């Protein structure tokens, strides 16, 4: 065979190999995105079940609308924020590729990557907004909630991601920050943002008595909540798949470009998950907390998901599972009414994850140019940044909404039930469905 002919065949093979890799990557992120929709199915079921029957549909509508508003706003400005701000508040030139009129931001035969990456990040954004959603059920106005969800999902968390979940993010290049599965930018920011909102929103009517008593307000369908939480776990596999980068013809890498394997994720996701379940079981015996513990366990192991020895991920998840219910009890003592424990599960679970990585993976080398190795102080400092980046905007924006009368429903609507006030449908129309038993102060 002629050398020229061989050369031609080699080039054709290389082209075919490259295209196969490109399409494999596209397919991988396509299905990760589809799996992440399960997270929203889960949040929907979980929050509707955690609501009293008079609020069941209103809670679900909130979830559906959070999804519907976060996706377009993430297209309008979320992706641009991610690409534009890795160095802090200075706008990087790379941001131009994320502007909503950029050639990459639509069908383009020379770019198979942007759409699927944008979609995966858009689902991360919607997940972040959903974390807020459960905590504020039964008394927040839908309009106020949507404004908060858009700000959290399409501005705040993605700014945090640009700083600490980006190959050139300044938290990594300056402090060596490592957080493979976004415990800081997704879970911490959403959890602390939620805490800021809850301080202005206040508790549900009747939740805390003037004499210091606490009235339990159980949801109307705990089994539905449990199924919802299990769906979130299924969706987490899509979320975590979206946290690893497919490299054509080479090893996977994390978002920080350090080598990794999906096998590492598989070991530590499952071990962290069950550690969290056992931690919550041991400390509460409550099935709602056990399934929340599965989330806490995964979140606790998330920062070092690519590096932990699996039994270590199990122990870290177990500790997270023991801590989260206690944090929720503390919030109740402080008269902060988080209806589903989102601050404890996501905010404190994320914080523990970032700190645990500082304890257990300190010394691992980073590959970003000039970046120091992972260190405890780097992780601690980054945790403070994420906590503030979540809490301050959440508190300030909810305070403004409160002053504008856009944050909380009227007392009449809250007592009657938000389904009656807002929803032109009934959750259980064929059942005798009296209003939920009034609570002491109602």
């Amino acid at each position: 065979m002629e050398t020229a002919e061989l050369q031609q065949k080699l080039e054709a093979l290389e082209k075919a190999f490259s295209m196969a890799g490109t399409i494999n990557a596209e397919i991988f992120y396509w299905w990760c995105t589809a799996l992440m929709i399960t997270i929203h199915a889960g949040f929907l079921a979980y929050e509707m079940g955690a609501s009293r029957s008079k609020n069941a549909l209103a809670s679900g509508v909130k979830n559906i609308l959070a999804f519907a508003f976060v996706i377009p706003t993430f297209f309008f400005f979320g992706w641009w924020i991610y690409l534009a701000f890795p160095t802090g508040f200075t706008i990087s030139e790379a941001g131009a590729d994320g502007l909503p009129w950029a050639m990459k931001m639509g069908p383009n035969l020379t770019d198979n990557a942007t759409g699927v990456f944008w979609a995966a990040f858009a689902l991360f954004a919607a997940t972040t907004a959903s974390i807020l959603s459960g905590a504020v059920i039964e008394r927040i106005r839908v309009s106020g909630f949507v404004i908060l969800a858009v700000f959290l999902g399409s501005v705040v968390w993605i700014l945090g991601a640009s700083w600490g979940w980006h190959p050139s993010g300044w938290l990594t290049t300056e402090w060596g920050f490592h957080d493979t599965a976004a415990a800081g930018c997704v879970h911490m920011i959403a959890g602390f943002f939620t805490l800021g909102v809850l301080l202005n929103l206040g508790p549900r009517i009747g939740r805390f008595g003037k004499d210091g008593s606490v009235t339990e307000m159980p949801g109307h369908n705990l089994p539905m909540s449990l199924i919802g939480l299990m769906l979130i776990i299924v969706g987490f596999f899509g979320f975590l798949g979206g946290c690893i980068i497919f490299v054509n013809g080479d090893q996977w890498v994390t978002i920080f470009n350090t080598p990794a394997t999906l096998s590492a994720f598989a070991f530590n996701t499952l071990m962290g998950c069950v550690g969290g379940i056992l931690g919550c079981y041991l400390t509460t015996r409550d099935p709602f907390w056990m399934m929340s513990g599965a989330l806490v366990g995964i979140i606790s192991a998330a920062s070092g998901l690519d590096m932990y020895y699996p039994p270590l991920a199990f122990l870290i998840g177990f500790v997270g599972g023991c801590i989260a219910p206690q944090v929720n009890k503390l919030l109740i003592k402080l008269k902060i009414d988080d209806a589903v424990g989102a601050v404890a599960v996501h905010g404190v679970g994320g914080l523990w994850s970032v700190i645990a990585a500082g304890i257990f993976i300190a010394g691992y080398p980073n590959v970003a140019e000039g970046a120091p190795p992972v260190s405890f102080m780097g992780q601690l400092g980054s945790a403070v940044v994420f906590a503030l980046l979540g809490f301050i905007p959440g508190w300030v924006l909810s305070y403004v909404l409160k002053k504008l009368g856009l944050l909380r429903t009227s007392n009449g609507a809250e007592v009657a039930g938000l389904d009656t006030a807002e929803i032109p449908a009934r959750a259980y129309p064929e059942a005798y469905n009296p209003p939920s038993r009034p609570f002491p102060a109602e």
Partner: protein
Amino acid sequence: MSSPITTWEGAEAYFTFAHSPAAIAIILALSVIVVFFVLYNMAMHENESYRKLD
């Protein structure tokens, strides 16, 4: 240090404490203890709950 590597060049088993059999043994033992302690605690909790109803 928990990291068995100082560079990613040529890295193989890179998980935490992969270079320290003693640390691995301790972590593994702790995780086994947790699993069996929760199981023991579960049985004790059941006994106590049933006793209250008898």
